[in-house]
């Protein structure tokens, strides 16, 4: 997994609540057997009309906005556990997703793919969305080591929570398999000692 320490980037605002993983990547694109190319179909049915033409009203098709940060409404990533959602977000080029609330499985999937979900307060989310909407060139700094997110322009900032173990994994580019394999003996001892089942 790639390391993650800090990024400074412009952002794309997507102020919709309860964005489910079926919207992030519709089921018909889940037929691949590898992890490549999912970015092409990220938010597919919002980006394109049914006849394949571009929906110019959708923010990803608006040239004024770009960047490695996606800012979305509350309860982002709910629904299906498909990790393809995280793969498509990563493959499209996002490194950070900001929301005021994340669904559990999505949060874990993102972290396992080196994408940082940053949970901010509802007020700060609105500040970020409004600032970016008004000035698409506004830069946001996400500093994982100090668990701090700031708006360069207004110097407003907020701290965010992250599990210390997960933080360590991201900063060092480790993943959970490395750790689990390193404790194989402990797992085997556990298996031998258990009384039930």
């Amino acid at each position, binding site marked *: 997994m790639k390391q993650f320490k800090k990024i400074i980037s412009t952002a794309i605002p997507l102020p919709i609540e309860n964005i489910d993983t079926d919207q992030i990547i519709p*089921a018909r694109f889940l037929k691949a057997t590898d992890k490549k190319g999912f970015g092409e179909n990220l938010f597919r049915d919002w980006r394109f009309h049914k006849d394949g033409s571009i929906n110019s009203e959708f923010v990803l098709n608006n040239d004024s906005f770009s960047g490695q940060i996606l800012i979305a409404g509350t309860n982002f990533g709910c629904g299906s*556990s498909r990790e393809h959602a995280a793969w498509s977000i990563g493959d499209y080029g996002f490194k950070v997703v900001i929301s005021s609330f994340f669904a559990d499985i999505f949060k874990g999937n993102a972290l396992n793919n080196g994408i940082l979900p940053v949970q901010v307060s509802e007020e700060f989310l609105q500040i970020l969305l409004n600032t970016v909407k008004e000035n698409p060139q506004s830069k946001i700094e996400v500093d994982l080591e100090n668990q701090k997110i700031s708006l360069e322009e207004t110097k407003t900032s907020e701290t965010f929570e992250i599990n210390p173990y997960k933080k360590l994994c991201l900063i060092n580019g480790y993943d*959970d398999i490395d750790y689990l394999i390193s404790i194989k003996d402990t797992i085997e001892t556990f298996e031998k000692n258990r009384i039930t089942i």
Partner: protein
Amino acid sequence: MEKTLFDKVWDSHVVTTIKNGPQVLYIDKHLIHEVTSPQAFQELENRNIPLFRPKQIVATADHNTPTIDQHLPVKDELSRKQLEQLSINCKKNNIELYGLGHQYNGIVHVIAPELGITQPGMTMVCGDSHTSTHGAFGTIAFGIGTSQVAQVMASQSVITEKPKTMRIIVNGKLPKMVQPKDVILYIIAKLGTNSGTGYFIEYAGEVFENMSMEGRMTVCNMSIEMGARGGMIAPDASTYEYIKGRKFAPKEQEFDKRVAYWESLKTDTNAIFDLEFTFDATDIAPMITYGTNPGMGIKIGETIPTTENESFEKSLRYMGFEKGESLINQSINYVFIGSCTNSRIEDFRVVAEYIKGKKKALNVNALIVPGSQLVASQIKEEGLESIFEEAGFKLRQPGCSACLAMNDDKIPEGEYCVSTSNRNFEGRQGQGSRTILASPLVAASVAIEGKIIDISTTF
């Protein structure tokens, strides 16, 4: 210390706790299917990591599979390749696969319980969010992403934080026509789609105690629609009765020994939950959804709320509904009865009893998709097949089908489908499709009438 059912099962599976961090939880059973496993196998192969406990993995093909002509090669090339990849991976790694055409094939959350794989006190995972279904047996069961599928393959464990506990109590007697699906749709509508995030739910009280195992599975299945990792119900006589005699159930004395252990799992009287809600069964009515998340549900006779919120309005626009509108008499052309929420024999008995001697409305296309081969056989044995046929319903072969429309069973753009599945997200049943979630009984009534009727007052 007094413990909850969840604590008892969880604590007995903790391998170790990472300093300042999450816990390593041992997994008894790992279920896999074609869509979320290939990249996990690939990951392990790339890193040269062998599978740790292949005997604790069970595989099925369900998401992609066609529901007609299953004996023929799968027409869709990408689906066929994904299914083939699953067979190759299982063969290479000595994993039991109940693939297409196998007598035990079916939706992963239907087959594991009916084969007796799911048992109380276990931990189970699957790369599928509705793994929560298995909680009906007093099992800790939850969905995981593909990276975690690879972790479990490599170590039979997952790294995860212990969720908080929530108890939802429903006491009293359910009104006529109210089914387990209505109970869970009611709870989600009351609490909201993210109310359960970070929690594991225990459902308790008379309503769940009196509920069949099929009904309990329907309820636990949709725990994820509240954002919860999973939901569970304490094992009791109904649980043991259901498991007894099933293929992988413990036999004879071993069974009795297990029952004694399973009995000990119940939540202690004074155990404390982080959060608790109580509902009155008599307030529950047949439910339907009107929006694009499962929390947007109303009692069938009620009107759509008049909430002022951009996302809410966007959702109604997608559905083609208005604030304050009633859905009674809304014309419906598609009805889907199936999915891991409602495709067990009990669901089809309810439908058959309702439609017996009636005919579906001319405008309706009614699809019945059993959850498994075993359910399909039972439908035949019990004579339900001819009831469906005479009523004009199409009975298909098992699979996920129109629940997520990865195969050919899609609802056309702009059409409404009253569906017994669990998700009404935009485009879930096909691009542009509009899903209305309901119980099998409500779905059956819609198929007969060709429109939504209030079954709670009609009969």
